[in-house]
């Protein structure tokens, strides 16, 4: 996959070249990130997808100066993440996975601590904290301890904290994991608004829907390498064929699979369901049914789905990401 290197790509606020990160040494060494190249243009929302343990968080931790690359280089906001870590820190805002916030502090206290750490002038701290609380709709809860906040409130506060110094680049590590649909929608709107104001956003997510909604461009990482990159529409078109999902009697699965093979390539599915990418398009559905019928296999359930990011993802990684839990990819990243 070739990265777009059109005009202005030089100024890309996030650039990584050959980024490698190993954990441990010798025989036990694990290459969590194995040669990642990234280029996120100014004003882009970039979706970074991958199964658990694929290297998403490790990459983000390197880009946000929390972890040193074993090899390769990365520049964020024009600064090297290793030799100019301090400048990088000043330029980026990061909302962390699980919204790690000290539960004993109040929202305002956290914002003011953040303001101090980012060198916001004393006279401005209070005003800035107030503005941000209002922006994320937490003004009423500012004096309450974070321990009493709901999941959605924590994420919004987390976002506010990452904005204290008006960063030009924003990293959001799974910003909506575990949130209810309403809270997720609120956060999406806020992220969209920030992007409209010119902030570059790198977003990791488990939810393909989220990437579809927000991202201008996505990259899929698997086994520490980027396996797909591009804008969502193009990637979907590449997968091309719509997927037909079929449930049949469990004892006849193998026969059914053989019948389906005539219509296209098998697609990864949930346990107990068969999937086939219809090479000749949706019109083939009736032919599939007829073929199964002739083989004497009763169809218990049938679903046709247009190519989605999920198909892109499944095709690229062999996993299907429905929500978060998918078999086979349970290990968390170190």
């Amino acid at each position, binding site marked *: 996959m070739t990265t777009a290197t059109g005009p202005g790509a*030089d100024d890309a606020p996030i650039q990584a070249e050959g980024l490698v990160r190993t954990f441990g040494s010798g025989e036990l060494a694990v290459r969590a990130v194995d040669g990642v190249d990234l280029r996120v243009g100014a004003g882009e929302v970039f979706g970074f997808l991958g199964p658990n343990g694929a290297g998403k968080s490790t990459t983000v931790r390197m880009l946000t100066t929390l972890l040193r690359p074993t090899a390769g280089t990365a*520049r964020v906001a024009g600064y090297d993440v290793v030799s100019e870590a301090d*400048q990088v820190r000043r330029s980026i805002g990061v909302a*962390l996975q*699980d919204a790690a916030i000290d539960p004993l502090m109040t929202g305002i206290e956290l914002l003011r601590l*953040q303001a101090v*750490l980012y060198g*916001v002038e004393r006279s401005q701290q209070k005003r800035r904290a107030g503005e941000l609380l209002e922006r994320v709709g937490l003004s009423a809860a500012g004096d309450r301890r974070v321990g009493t906040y709901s999941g959605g409130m924590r994420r919004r506060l987390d976002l506010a904290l990452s904005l204290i110094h008006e*960063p030009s680049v924003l990293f959001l590590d799974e910003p909506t994991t575990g949130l209810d649909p309403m809270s997720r929608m609120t956060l999406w709107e806020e992220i969209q608004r920030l992007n409209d104001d010119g902030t570059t956003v790198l977003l990791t997510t488990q939810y393909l829907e989220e990437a579809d909604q927000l991202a201008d461009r996505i990259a899929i990482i698997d086994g520490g390498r980027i396996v797909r990159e591009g804008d969502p529409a193009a990637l979907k078109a590449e997968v091309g064929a719509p997927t037909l999902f079929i449930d049949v009697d469990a004892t006849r699965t193998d026969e059914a699979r053989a019948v389906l093979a005539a219509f296209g390539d098998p697609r990864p599915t949930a346990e107990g369901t068969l999937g086939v990418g219809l090479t000749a398009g949706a019109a083939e559905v009736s032919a599939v049914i007829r073929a199964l019928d002739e083989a004497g296999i009763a169809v218990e359930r049938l679903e046709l789905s247009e190519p989605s990011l999920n198909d892109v993802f499944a095709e690229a990684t062999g996993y299907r990401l429905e929500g978060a839990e998918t078999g086979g990819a349970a290990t968390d990243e170190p």
Partner: protein
Amino acid sequence: MTVERLDDTAMAAGTASTTAVPRGVGSGALVASALGLAVRNLRNIRRLPSAFLPALMMPLVQSIAFSGTFFAITQVPGFPTDRSINWFMPLAVVMGASFAGIGIGFSTVRDLESGFYDRLRMAPVSRRALLLGPLFGVWVRTLILMVIVIGTGLALGARLTGGLFGLAALIVVGLGVSVVGTGWGLGLAYRFGDMRASAFMQLGLFLALFLTSAQAPLSIMTGWLYYVARVNPFTPVIDLARIGFVEPGTVERPWVGLVALVLLAAVAMGFADRGLRRLSR
């Protein structure tokens, strides 16, 4: 599928870019940032009393329990004081102060486990602020502790034979060993990143402080402990803490205690500093 490398010319051009000039403000000043972190630490005295009260009670109970239980020990010929509270209260201050220091190790482990510490590490502040902030907090906690423990000790009959200079020595040692405890606690917290660190924090300090003249002066000790305590750098430190409460002249080399204290504090903070740097490695 493999990853294709970026076009070389684009790479070369990319390195020179400085487009995204931060709209933000600047780095947090060292002292302001450290104070901000110290305030957070101190707030938790009130918000998480279950973490502070035991740290306060321990030296109080220790000074009472040791001087009550070993009341008669001062009658051993050659013992440098005739009041057991004089002997054990300064010890309790030293132990309490050092454990106040490793208390910050515990809370740092909590921050590391929750991920909050990542946020602090991403802030554009000097790494020194991340060490000094908690240390300032520990100093305030130690001062509170010393006021209460020394006050109680005096109320229970401790006699300040060494005058104000002796009291100052105890306070200096208290603040100094709290630095040692802080460095040790933070260093282990960074290295382990989880609660396994707490066992090592406590055990290490416990051994270091008890394998000294903690219970009895070197002059009346026998056997293996004498040889260990004689070379343990904490022995002159504890002796210095007691200088105001024992017979004048019994602490022969107070300067050794002061030097040992400074060295121990420097080594411990260096240990913490290296641990903090290792976090990103």
